[in-house]
C-alpha cells in the first residue's frame, strides 16, 4: 500500500518476487491496478485518501478474531499501559480539542504512573482503560460495511486482505509493508503510517526478519539528507533545532534529554548531551569551549510555535517576506504542490541561486508559461553541478546502508562538484565578514571550515568529522585515546567537549579501521538472512535490522528459529545466564536478556525499544499533533459531503493556507473526479535527471492522464487524444490513457471516478514545452505533524480540448 515498488523501486521488487516464489503472499492495495498489482496474489482497489479506514478495519478484524500476538504486545508495546481517565474520543475529536486554535491540548493523552513514576501496566489486558481496550473500542466502529462505503473496496476484498495479512501474527511468520509517498502525501500522512505500525506491533512483526514498516525512499540519498538535517526542525542525528525560549545549552539539553524511572528502560536518548555537545564541537572546533557553552548561543533559534516548512517557505515567499532563495539540486517549480503558486512566489524574490545538472523549470521560471520576463526582477544564478559519477562521497539507501562512490571522469566542462561550490561559497562569506564585518558575524567566523585538500573539497575529511574525533587525550570506556584519534563509535562520545561528531548516528562509519562505507565483503552473517554485515555500513553501529531485540523472547531466544535475527548466546549456570553475548545482527544494545533460561527476571536486562523513553513501542502515541490513535478523515478535497465515520469531515488540525493562490473545491460539481499523482519507471521525480535523456524520454515522452473506460465513455474521450485536466488551482494538457487499470468505485451510495497523472514532467524538457507538471493541480495543504503536502488525493475535472 502507498507504493508501487515494481515500477518505482524495481530492484527492491526482485526480493518480493523471491519471497513469493518461496510461498509468500503479495498483497497490493492501490487505487490503480499497477505493475506491482499485476505481480501480486491479491489486489484490492481503494479510493485515494482512505487508507486509515482500510487498515482500521484490519485492526478490528485482528481483535474480533483474537489474532494479536499477546506475548509481544504485553512485553514490547505500551498495550498494557493504563491511559488517563480523562482521555476521551467523541465523534471524530480527541479530548483537549481547541476549536479556535485548531489544535489539541494533550494533557489527557497520558498514562497513569505508579508511586515510582513508572507507567502502570495491566498484563492481563483486562483493565478497560488499558491501551489495548481503548484501541479495540476505537476501531470497533470500523466494520466491514462502513469501511467498504468509505474506501470503495468490496467487503470480500477487504476480508481476503485482512485474513491473509493477519495470519502473519503467528509465531515464525512475518509480514512487511513497503510504502512510499502514497501514504505520506496526505493530510493524515503520519497517521496512515501509524495505523500500519500499530498492526505490525499487534502481529509482532517489528524487529523480526521480513517484518517492519519500510519507507521506500525515492531519492538515492534522501535518507542521508534527512539524517544530516536539511530540515528546519532538526539538527544532524535527529537532535532538536533550538527555539527562542531555549536560551542556554543547559536548558536545551535538559529539555530534550528524557528521564525514565524504570531501571529496565535503556532510554537511549539519555545520552542526548553527549551528542549535542559533540555536534557543537564539530561545528565550531576549538572555538567551542565549556566557557562559551560550546557555541550554543551562535546557533540560530526558530520562533517558538512557528513552522518553517516547505509549504511555509513558498507561502511566505508568495507574501513577499523572503528575498533570497537557494534551490540546490531541487526543482520546486515542478516538485512543489500548487506549483503555480510556487512559480509566482519565485517572481517576488530579489535573487535565486539554482544549482543543477540541467537547465530547469525553477532556474528558468521567469521565461516559463504565462511569465513576462520584463516584469520579473528576480536575479538568477544558475550553477552547473557535477554528476554523481564525477565526484567522491557517500550516500545512504532506504535500508540505511551507507555506500561510498568513487570519481570516474572529471566534471564535464566547467561544472563543479556541489562540495566544491559549497566550500568556496563558505570561504568567500568568511572572507567578506572578516574583511567588512556585518550583522552578527560570529557564527560564520567561528564555523570550522577546513574540509579542502589542495583547493578541492575533500569528502574524506568531512566523513571523518561526521564520525567524530577525540579533541584531547582521553580515557573512555577503559581505552586510551590521543587528541586527533577517530572515535570508534558513539558509545565513546562525551558531553564535556572531549569529543566531536558531526552526526552521532554515523559515529563508527569512518574509524581507525578505515572507511566502513567502502567495504565490499561478500559473506553473510551467521543467521544467513541477507544482512551482509561487511558490505558497506549501516547506522547505528552497523546494525542492519533496528528494533531487533523485539525478535526474541524474554530469554533472548528468537521467535523464528529458522530466520532468526539475533539470539542470546551467553553461558548458563544453574539456569542463569552468567556472561552476556549476542550473535547474529548487532543487537539493539548489548545488555543481558530480560529473563534467565529458568524464567527468573534479571535486573540488568533492558526492554526492547531502546529509543522510547519507557522502553516500549507506542501503540498509543501521545506525541503526535492530531491524536494518539489514527482516525479516518476525508482529504481536504473529497467526493463526499460528509465523513461517514464522524462529523469531522477532514483532519481538524490540518494546516490550510489562505493566500489568493490557495483555492480549494470539495464536493464541487466543477471538479467531480478524485485525482492522484504517481511516477513512471522511466522518469525520476520531476524528471529533471531523466527528461533531458534521449532513451528515457523516448520510452515515456508525454504526461498522461489515466482513466477508466467507463469515464472515457462518459466524457467522450478516446485513448491517445489530448485532454485538459484542471483543479481549483490550475490546469494542464495531458494525453488520455484509457485503461482497465482504473475502475469506477461505489462510495457511499454514489459512483466515484478516479484518475491519475504522473508528476514527472515540466515545460523545459522535452523542448516542445507542452508537457507540464501535475503539481499545477495539487493543493498546498498538508499533514499537521510534518506539513507534507496532500498531493495524493484531490479533486479534478477532465475535458476535451476543442481546437479551432
Amino acid at each position: 500500500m502507498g507504493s508501487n515498488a515494481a515500477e518505482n523501486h524495481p530492484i527492491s521488487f526482485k526480493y518480493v518476487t523471491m519471497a513469493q516464489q518461496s510461498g509468500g503472499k503479495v498483497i497490493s492495495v492501490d487505487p490503480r491496478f499497477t505493475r506491482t498489482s499485476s505481480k501480486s496474489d491479491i489486489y484490492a482497489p481503494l479510493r485515494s485518501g482512505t487508507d486509515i479506514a482500510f487498515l482500521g478495519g484490519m485492526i478490528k478484524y485482528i481483535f474480533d478474531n483474537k489474532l494479536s500476538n499477546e506475548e509481544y504486545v504485553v512485553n514490547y508495546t505500551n498495550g498494557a499501559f493504563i491511559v488517563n481517565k480523562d482521555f476521551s474520543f467523541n465523534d471524530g475529536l480527541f479530548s483537549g480539542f481547541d476549536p479556535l486554535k485548531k489544535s489539541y491540548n494533550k494533557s489527557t493523552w497520558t498514562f497513569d504512573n505508579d508511586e515510582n513514576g513508572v507507567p502502570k501496566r495491566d498484563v492481563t489486558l483486562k483493565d478497560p482503560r488499558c491501551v489495548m481496550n481503548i484501541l479495540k473500542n476505537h476501531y470497533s466502529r470500523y466494520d466491514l460495511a462502513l469501511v467498504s462505503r468509505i474506501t470503495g473496496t468490496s467487503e470480500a476484498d477487504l476480508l481476503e486482505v485482512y485474513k491473509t495479512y493477519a495470519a502473519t501474527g503467528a509465531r515464525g511468520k512475518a509480514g512487511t509493508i513497503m510504502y512510499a509517498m502514497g501514504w505520506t502525501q496526505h493530510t493524515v500522512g503520519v497517521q496512515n503510517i501509524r495505523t500500519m505500525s500499530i498492526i505490525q506491533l499487534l502481529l509482532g512483526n517489528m524487529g523480526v526478519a521480513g517484518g517492519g514498516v519500510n519507507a521506500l525512499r525515492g531519492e538515492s540519498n534522501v535518507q542521508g539528507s534527512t539524517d544530516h538535517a536539511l530540515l528546519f526542525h532538526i539538527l544532524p542525528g535527529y537532535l532538536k533545532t533550538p527555539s527562542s525560549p531555549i536560551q542556554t545549552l543547559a536548558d536545551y539539553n535538559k529539555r530534550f534529554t528524557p528521564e525514565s524511572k524504570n531501571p529496565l528502560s535503556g532510554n537511549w536518548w539519555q545520552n542526548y548531551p553527549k551528542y549535542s555537545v559533540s555536534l557543537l564541537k564539530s561545528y565550531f572546533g576549538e572555538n567551542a569551549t565549556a566557557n562559551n557553552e560550546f557555541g550554543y548561543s551562535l546557533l540560530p533559534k526558530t520562533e517558538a510555535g512557528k513552522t518553517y516548512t516547505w509549504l511555509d517557505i513558498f507561502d511566505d515567499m508568495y507574501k513577499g517576506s523572503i528575498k533570497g532563495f537557494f534551490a540546490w539540486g531541487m526543482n520546486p517549480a515542478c516538485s512543489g504542490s500548487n506549483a503555480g503558486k510556487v512559480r509566482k512566489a519565485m517572481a517576488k524574490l530579489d535573487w535565486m541561486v539554482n544549482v543543477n545538472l540541467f537547465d530547469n523549470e525553477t532556474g528558468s521560471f521567469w521565461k516559463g508559461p504565462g511569465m513576462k520576463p520584463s516584469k520579473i526582477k528576480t536575479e538568477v544564478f544558475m550553477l552547473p553541478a557535477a554528476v554523481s559519477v564525477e565526484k567522491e562521497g557517500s550516500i545512504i539507501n532506504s535500508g540505511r546502508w551507507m555506500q561510498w562512490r568513487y570519481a570516474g571522469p572529471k566534471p564535464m566542462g566547467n561544472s563543479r562538484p556541489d562540495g566544491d561550490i559549497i566550500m568556496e561559497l563558505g570561504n568567500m562569506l568568511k572572507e567578506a565578514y572578516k574583511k567588512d564585518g556585518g550583522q552578527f558575524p560570529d557564527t560564520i567566523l567561528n564555523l570550522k571550515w577546513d574540509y579542502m585538500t589542495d583547493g578541492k573539497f575533500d569528502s574524506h575529511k568531512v566523513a571523518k568529522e561526521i564520525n567524530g574525533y577525540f579533541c584531547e587525550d582521553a580515557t573512555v570506556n577503559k581505552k586510551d585515546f590521543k587528541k586527533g584519534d577517530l572515535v570508534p563509535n558513539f558509545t565513546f562520545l562525551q558531553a564535556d567537549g572531549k569529543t566531536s561528531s558531526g552526526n552521532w548516528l554515523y559515529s563508527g562509519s569512518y574509524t581507525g579501521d578505515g572507511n566502513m562505507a567502502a567495504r565490499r565483503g561478500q559473506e553473510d552473517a551467521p543467521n544467513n538472512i541477507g544482512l551482509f554485515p561487511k558490505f558497506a555500513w549501516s547506522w547505528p553501529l552497523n546494525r542492519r535490522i533496528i528494533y531487533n531485540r523485539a525478535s526474541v523472547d524474554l530469554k533472548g531466544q528468537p521467535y523464528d528459529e529458522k530466520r532468526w535475527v539475533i539470539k542470546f548466546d551467553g553461558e548458563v549456570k544453574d539456569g542463569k545466564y552468567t556472561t552476556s553475548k549476542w550473535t547474529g545482527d548487532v543487537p539493539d544494545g548489548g545488555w543481558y536478556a530480560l529473563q534467565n533460561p529458568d524464567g527468573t527476571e534479571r535486573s540488568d536486562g533492558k526492554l526492547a525499544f531502546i529509543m522510547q523513553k519507557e522502553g516500549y513501542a507506542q501503540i498509543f502515541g501521545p506525541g503526535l499533533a492530531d491524536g494518539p490513535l489514527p482516525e479516518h478523515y476525508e482529504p481536504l478535497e473529497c467526493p463526499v459531503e460528509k465523513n461517514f465515520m464522524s462529523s469531522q469531515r477532514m483532519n481538524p488540525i490540518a494546516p490550510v493556507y489562505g493566500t489568493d493562490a490557495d483555492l480549494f473545491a470539495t464536493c464541487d460539481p466543477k471538479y467531480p473526479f478524485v485525482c492522484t499523482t504517481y511516477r513512471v519507471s522511466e522518469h525520476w521525480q520531476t524528471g529533471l535527471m531523466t527528461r533531458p535523456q534521449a532513451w528515457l524520454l523516448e520510452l515515456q515522452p508525454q504526461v498522461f492522464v489515466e482513466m477508466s473506460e467507463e469515464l472515457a465513455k462518459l466524457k467522450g474521450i478516446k485513448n491517445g487524444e489530448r485532454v485538459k485536466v484542471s483543479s481549483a488551482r490550475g490546469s494542464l494538457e495531458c494525453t488520455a490513457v484509457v485503461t482497465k487499470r482504473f475502475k469506477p468505485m461505489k462510495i457511499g451510495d454514489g459512483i466515484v471516478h478516479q484518475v491519475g497523472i504522473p508528476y514527472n514532467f515540466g515545460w523545459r524538457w522535452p523542448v516542445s514545452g507542452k508537457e507540464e507538471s501535475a503539481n499545477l493541480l495539487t493543493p498546498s495543504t498538508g499533514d499537521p505533524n510534518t506539513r507534507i503536502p496532500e498531493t495524493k488525493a484531490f479533486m479534478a475535472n477532465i475535458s476535451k480540448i476543442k481546437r479551432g
Partner: protein
Amino acid sequence: MNVTRRGFIKISGATAAGIAVSGMGFDLSPVKAHALTLKTKDAKETTTICCYCGVGCGAIVHTGKEKGRVINIEGDPDHVINRGALCSKGAALSQLAENKNRLTEPMYRAPGSNVWKKVSWDWTLAEITKRIKASREASFTLKNAKGETVNRTEAIASVGSAALDNEECWIYQALMRSLGLVYIEHQARI
C-alpha cells in the same frame, strides 16, 4: 565453488592466457579475443551507487583513457543488493553523465532580462556572496519581540538536497545555519 561474475572473468582470463582448456573445462579463447576488442578495454573502472531511487544499486563506470569521459555504465555483479541488475533508469546512467543538454558553465539572468548570460565562477560566487550579505544585513534579527536572543534571518530560504552526498549535505547545512537561516528544507518534506 562459488564464482561471482567478476571472479569468472578473472578465471577465464587466466585460462585463455595459459592452457586453452583448463579449470573451467572448456575453451574460452574466442571470448577472450572478442573481449580484447571491447571499447572498455583500457578504460578506468570505478564503482558507483545509482543516483536515482533509494534502493542503492551498485554499478561500474568505465571512463575512457583517451577523452576521459564515460564510455559505459553497467550493473555491478558483485553488489549484494542488485547483483548486476539495473532498472530502466539505472541502465541509462551513462546518458546522464554524457549528455549535450548538461549545464557546463555558470549562467546569470539579470532583473527584467529575457536571456541567460554565460558568466565566470569567480564573478558568480562573488556576486552571490554580495546578495547573501545584503539580504542578511537587511533582515538579521538578534532578538525577537520577547527579547530572546535568536540570531537568525527569515529573509533567506534554502531547499536542497537529497541529490547531494552525505558529506556535502553536512557542510551545506552547517553553512546555512552559520548564516542564521531557519528556512532550511528539502525533498524529504514533500
